């Protein structure tokens, strides 16, 4: 891989023509997406529009039926119904996901949750993985909670552990699936500010969210999806401020009424 000056403008992640069906239900119909290095894309749209499925395809938790995903120029995966496992594993290695319901490992301490992947999968020396985990935990304000079990933490703390677990995999792209939607309102802020900091540090991210104010603040681009297609995309203030499509307008209006 050659890192040149133009690397900060070239797309790090490119998705084209992504298709996915469950049975005879077509959930993604030719999705295109481009995220530049250090860029933040917010995926928004009504329930069932396919946002989570897009993220899951990026992390190989779902195998698309068609289309292509390119990460960093070095990895291109074509989906043709029989994509081999090695390609899926390689794709998964490039990204790390933060789940809506955290999905922390309940039988492991916070520290073990974070070091599990680096040590067991990436085979990094434990001491090194622990040191990095402690540093990352401290950064999200959980430096003292390494020995706690997930159920001893608040939802907001658990989600910050979820974020640290993703960071510890050293991914090229961070994927967030409604990271705050399971949280009590007063805990949302902490998690969002962590995500904001990560974007300021230059992490490349795709965020599914219903927090439109946050999307405006953190995203370079907002992509509005409905029924498995991208309806509208562009700068946050355009898509969320003065959308051109009727479906986008309805969606934004409905979400704003909620608050």
């Amino acid at each position: 891989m050659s890192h040149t000056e133009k690397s900060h403008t070239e797309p790090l992640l490119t998705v084209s023509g992504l298709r996915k069906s469950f049975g005879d239900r077509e959930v993604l119909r030719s999705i295109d997406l481009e995220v530049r290095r250090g860029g933040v894309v917010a995926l928004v749209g009504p329930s069932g529009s396919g946002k989570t499925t897009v993220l899951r395809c990026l992390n190989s938790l779902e195998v698309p039926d068609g289309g292509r995903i390119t990460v960093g120029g070095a990895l291109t995966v074509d989906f043709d119904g029989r994509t081999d496992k090695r390609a899926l594993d390689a794709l998964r290695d490039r990204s790390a996901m933060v789940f809506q319901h955290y999905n922390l490992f309940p039988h492991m301490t916070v520290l073990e949750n974070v070091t599990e992947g680096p040590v067991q999968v990436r085979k990094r020396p434990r001491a090194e993985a622990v040191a990095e985990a402690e540093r990352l935990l401290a950064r999200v304000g959980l430096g003292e909670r390494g020995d706690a079990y997930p159920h001893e933490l608040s939802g907001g703390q658990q989600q910050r552990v979820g974020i640290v677990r993703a960071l510890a995999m050293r991914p090229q792209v961070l994927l967030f699936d409604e990271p705050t939607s399971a949280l009590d309102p007063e805990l949302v802020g902490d998690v969002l500010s962590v995500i904001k900091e990560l974007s300021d540090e230059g992490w490349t991210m795709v965020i599914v969210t219903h927090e439109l104010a946050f999307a405006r603040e953190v995203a370079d681009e907002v992509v509005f999806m409905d029924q498995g297609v991208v309806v509208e995309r562009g700068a946050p203030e355009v898509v969320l401020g003065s959308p051109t499509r009727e479906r986008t307008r309805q969606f934004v209006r409905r979400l704003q009424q909620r608050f």
Partner: protein
Amino acid sequence: MDWELVRTSLWPIVRGAVLGTIPLTLASFALGLAIALVVALMRLSRVTVAAAVARAYVSVIRGTPLLVQLFVIFYGLPSVGLTISPWPSAIIAFSMNVGGYAAEVIRAAILSVPKGQWEAAHMVGMSRGLALRRIILPQAARVSVPPLSNTFISLVKDTSLASLILVTELFREAQQIAAPSGEFMVLYVEAAAVYWVICLFLSAGQSRLERRLDRYVAH
């Protein structure tokens, strides 16, 4: 009541428990769990042949009496040229039986682990095997403890059937003293009491184990 008989027979009966019932139970349970894990994983595997074989195994084990299984192995197999002595026969029969019942427990426990746990494991790069070993089975094990403890306690009592294939264990010791003396009531109640005491200890152990495992589980 003949207290002298109770006193003199207690030692042989306890010896039968210590040298027969308890090792027979432990060996059969350990082997049985290994069989159960394999059968449970076969039932959950995507290989349809493996799943079908496992399903048939569980069905046969659960659909036939343990005593008959024991007799097939000890009295039946010799007529097809395979003679197995009492102890190994008992261990084979009991462990295969535990294997069938515990397989269902383990399978249900694995299925009870939320799908999100598999996904998080895959997200950090784990293969199915590693995810199973590091993430799913430890959680399934906690769920399995209460039902498997029950299987274990049942097994302690079921090992009395081994007396029928001449394994010297608790109940056979009691029988051997009862027959010449004619004191069936005294000896059999005594044997029952020893089983009961063993099971009381096991139940207490089960509660403690469950409380300890509970600490890590969110409610």
